[in-house]
């Protein structure tokens, strides 16, 4: 018997996927900020913590592009090194609840019954508290510092990932391809990790891009309230707080880190939108 002919859609494979404009714009904004943070020593000429008390509160000049603060530290250096601190902490603070929440959600959704009930009631307990109240309480109890911030944010925000991923898992586990993998004799862990997780993780990724904006705001807020990364490590929140007392004479000291926060948030939001569009098209 001869080979039966088969037809398939080659054009689809050859079609270049167009990147959404939001993804490009967000990527560009964030790329510049992340680039500056990574290459901080190359784009600044002052140590961000070195004080020069003979040259305090100087306005912008050729030597100090954005002037100096009340301790004579270079504002541009502090801004760039602050990006380093804040973005790094935010990255860890989004990665950790992402991993924990996704795993909790996928196992709760897949196995259901007692495990599901336990995980989801725990999630209910966490969301019963307002976000900032719980984060500040935890940071206060653990003592200010990078580690405490990451732990506090993880404890609070794994819940969103778990809920999103659980919902997606409930849908995915009843799909025929899961039945097919069972019929082929796959182990449960392989089914969950290799076949369910890749199908549900994209929703968690999209959420992560908006969650990281919230996390940066939380980190900056904690810094502003004095619960953040301890001085003299540069941090946008601490910069805003300490510039506040000179608001009438040197408004730029508080405003410049504020603009940096807004730009970072904007870049991440655009990136998130673009990513959501890209991932939904691929379905």
């Amino acid at each position, binding site marked *: *018997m001869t*080979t*039966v*002919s*088969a*037809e*398939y*859609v*080659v054009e*689809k*494979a050859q079609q270049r996927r167009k990147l959404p404009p939001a993804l490009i714009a967000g990527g560009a904004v964030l790329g510049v900020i992340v680039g500056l943070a990574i290459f901080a020593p190359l784009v600044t000429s002052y140590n961000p913590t070195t004080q020069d008390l003979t040259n305090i509160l100087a306005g912008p000049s050729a030597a100090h592009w954005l002037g100096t603060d009340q301790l004579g530290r270079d504002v541009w250096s502090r801004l760039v090194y602050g990006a380093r601190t804040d973005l790094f902490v935010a990255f860890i603070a989004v990665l950790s609840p992402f991993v924990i929440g996704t795993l909790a959600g996928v196992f709760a959704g897949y196995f259901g019954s007692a495990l599901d009930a336990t995980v989801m009631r725990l999630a209910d307990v966490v969301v019963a508290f307002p976000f900032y109240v719980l984060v500040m309480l935890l940071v206060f109890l653990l003592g200010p510092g990078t580690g405490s911030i990451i732990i506090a944010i993880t404890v609070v925000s794994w819940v969103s990932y778990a809920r999103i991923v659980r919902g997606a898992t409930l849908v995915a586990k009843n*799909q*025929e*391809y899961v*039945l*097919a*993998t*069972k*019929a*082929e*004799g*796959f*182990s449960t862990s*392989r089914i969950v990790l*290799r*076949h369910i997780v*890749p*199908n549900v993780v994209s929703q968690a990724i999209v959420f992560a891009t908006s969650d990281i904006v919230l996390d940066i705001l939380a980190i900056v807020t904690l810094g502003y309230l004095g619960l953040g990364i301890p001085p003299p490590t540069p941090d946008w929140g601490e910069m805003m707080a300490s510039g506040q007392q000179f608001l009438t004479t040197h408004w730029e000291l508080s405003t410049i880190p504020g603009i940096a926060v807004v730009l970072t948030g904007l870049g991440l939001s655009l990136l998130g939108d673009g990513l959501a569009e890209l991932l939904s098209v691929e*379905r």
Partner: protein
Amino acid sequence: MRAGHLVRPRERGPALVPPAPSGRPGLLEVEGLTVSVSPPGERRRVDVVSNVSFNIMAGEAVGLVGESGSGKSLTLRAILGLLPAGATVKGGAVRFEGVDLLSGGKRSLQRVRGTGVTMIFQEPMTALNPVVRVGEQIVDAARRQLGWSRRESSEHALELARHMGIRDPDAVLSLYPHELSGGLRQRVMIAAALACQPRLVLCDEPTTALDVTIQAQIVALLARLRQESQMSLLYVTHDLAVVAQLCQRLQVMYAGSIVEKGSVAEIFASPRHPYTLGLIRATPDVHTVVDELTGIPGSAPHVGARPAGCAFHPRCSLATIECSSGEMPLRDLGNGRASACIHVDACQSAAEGLEAVR
């Protein structure tokens, strides 16, 4: 309505169906299988599959035919322990190569799944993982079960794809399921199921979602693969034409029970159950011009509201008062045939008209 547009596949050539092998031990034995569910909103449990028994020899293709809701898909799933939530096996035994799959727990099932028994599904779009490339999906199970290396498995994937009649397999294997056509997806799914070289493939209406030409290609592919590798098929469908083309033996299910079984040729020539007769009469034939297809009056009973006696009697033209009460077990008619009808002779004379029509 003119019903002459469908080609009756079995008249296309007898070469596809070799005679059934005999004298070999049963590969799969299902004995008294009973599956029960709770109807929506009710607490009581009702049997959706009751006391189903059959066996499949090595290298044999067996058809399981019935309407939607007759319990044929649940029978299939019960064999591999893949019943949906809420459905449970109430009784009976399923033995594969002598090993009981129902009482052996998860471990004996896992040993058999993939390499011993596997399953092909109706809807190839949902039965393939949307985010994994098809090349990986074909060999994924085999890599684990047979321990193929990465390099070996990509060679095997190409070979399997070519064997399934996929043109240009290099290009196809690097695509995702949504980039393939329905027929191609079904070929991919069959390739994935056959990668572990199973001895029995359970087919859950694998061609129902495809159009007629692609359906004919897939059925021909399955027939060829069965002959080449001497695997067995249990083919669930409501399409008698496919059974005629692919299978040696046939069992007809109605309302959760097998009502007739026997060789395909004999059942088609002379059905011994009024339900089978009705099904055959309702199949359009290219050689006969009829004004209207003869349907079966009424519709299949709902789960939990099955009539006493013979479940088919309210729709049956041969029914008498005896049909409405008592048990209707399968009665052996000799030569591997059996029927649950108590009016076998009346049915036989009714079926003679069928012969005349042909």
